[in-house]
């Protein structure tokens, strides 16, 4: 057995990392196609307020992040419905409020180490409860994503036509925002709140360079994310780097390599 798998914390890290690598790109595909990358960032940053609240109140920070992200998600949807002309502003307003609250609450937490570990993630230090939370939340996110697979596709492709055809667009949007909130909250513990949205976007962008259908885009995105996670964990273990950042940077390097190769091929062809 490889040395890396002899450690209990690395086994947990692989399990949590691969589980998240399956669900994050599923959400990421819709976010990229709807051109809403800001929503991932907004919810991830807002989840920090939940982390700080969790640390202050002595409850699990990941659970705190989930609650606050869900509330932020509902807030975004609420503002969007009330002010449809300013839908983008709802994201910016919610993110600002979340970061402000996180900033204030983090000032009262004892020891900045725990809070900071959520900024860039700390996948190797998750405990059994958090691992169970990651797996359970991921299962829920994956099942709901698969159940709403076709509706999410249609809303991403053409919201007006989807609504006219009878798809319950409001319901689909609300559920999707809640899924995004759940996804970024649990991912903030592993890859970090500051870079979770990169993991939503980079594997999808890589997949879109090769996919020949929407279905392939989803499958390839998951495969890319799993590969980045495994490679990132190996590199971080042997080179003693931060795992979350290494996973994201691995993705960035692969994406740049793909774009350069495809660009060169196009020029030659």
């Amino acid at each position, binding site marked *: 057995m490889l040395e890396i798998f002899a450690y209990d914390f690395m086994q947990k890290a692989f399990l949590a990392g691969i589980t998240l690598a399956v669900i994050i790109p599923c959400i990421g595909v819709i976010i990229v196609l709807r051109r809403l990358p800001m929503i991932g960032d907004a919810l991830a940053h807002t989840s920090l307020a939940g982390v700080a609240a969790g640390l202050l109140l002595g409850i699990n920070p990941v659970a705190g992040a989930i609650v606050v992200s869900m509330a932020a998600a509902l807030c975004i949807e609420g503002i969007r419905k009330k002010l449809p002309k300013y839908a983008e502003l709802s994201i910016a307003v919610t993110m600002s409020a979340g970061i402000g609250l996180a900033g204030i609450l983090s000032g009262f937490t004892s020891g900045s180490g725990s809070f900071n570990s959520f900024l860039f993630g700390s996948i190797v230090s998750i405990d059994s409860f958090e691992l169970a939370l990651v797996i359970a939340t991921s299962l829920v996110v994956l099942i709901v994503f698969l159940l709403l697979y076709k509706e999410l*596709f249609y809303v991403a*492709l053409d919201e007006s036509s989807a609504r*006219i*055809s009878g798809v319950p667009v409001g319901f689909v949007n609300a559920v999707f925002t809640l899924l995004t909130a759940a996804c970024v909250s649990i991912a903030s513990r592993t890859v970090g709140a500051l870079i979770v949205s990169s993991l939503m976007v980079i594997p999808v962008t890589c997949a879109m360079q090769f996919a020949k259908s929407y279905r392939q*885009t989803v499958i390839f995105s998951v495969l890319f994310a799993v590969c980045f996670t495994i490679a990132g964990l190996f590199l971080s273990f042997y080179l003693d780097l931060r795992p979350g950042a290494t996973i994201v940077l691995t993705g960035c390097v692969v994406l740049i390599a793909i774009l350069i190769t495809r660009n060169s091929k196009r020029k030659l062809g």
Partner: protein
Amino acid sequence: MDKPPVLEASFLFFKYGDETLLGGVNFKVMPGDFVAVTGSNGAGKSTLFRLILNELSPASGGIFLFGEDLKHFKGWPRIGYVQQANPAYTSSFPATVEEVVLSNLYSRIGLFRPVRKVHRKSVLGALRLVGMSQLKNRMISELSGGQLQRVMVARALVSGCELLLLDEPVTGIDAEAAESLYELLHKINRDGVTIFMVTHDIGRCAKYVSRVLCLEDGTIVELNREQLERELLNKHRHR
């Protein structure tokens, strides 16, 4: 008993701020009609379309679909909708022709239910109707503007719509493809689908449509053949 109009606007008023854009619009679209709505830029064509799609609310007056007030209308699957081509968006959307057309069956299939063979057969039928069945596995990003609009017409037809609404369907596509799209719409109309189309391209579509409505100064008037020829002549002179 006579069938009710497929689409009817009754004393429709709409204001943007203080400006009255639609000042008492009345018209009826009967089953089997192929109606083109024309008018200068800013005359309110797009607003009228958005009112019909229930994306805007009128200040007063009403819209009726199949005899039912739009406010309570539930028969949206009877309506097909094709909007202006948006190559900037579709060129980066990773979906096949089949996936796009299939999407309009999703509400009929229902939430949480899988796509079955019978649905794929319907898609193939709709694609055959628009002459695109051989491209069903092609990515939409690889289609020309004309091909893409044919796919969008197939998507609207796949659910068996009775009224097809088209918003500037030939904008951004070349003359040959536009002519071919009008021929297709003419054929679909002969097969029994009522068509209501907003267009700038009245010159090219005039020979295919059964009625032309002109939206001007907040009201709508139906052009007879003589008025239409005059309108076309004016457009020709301004080119």
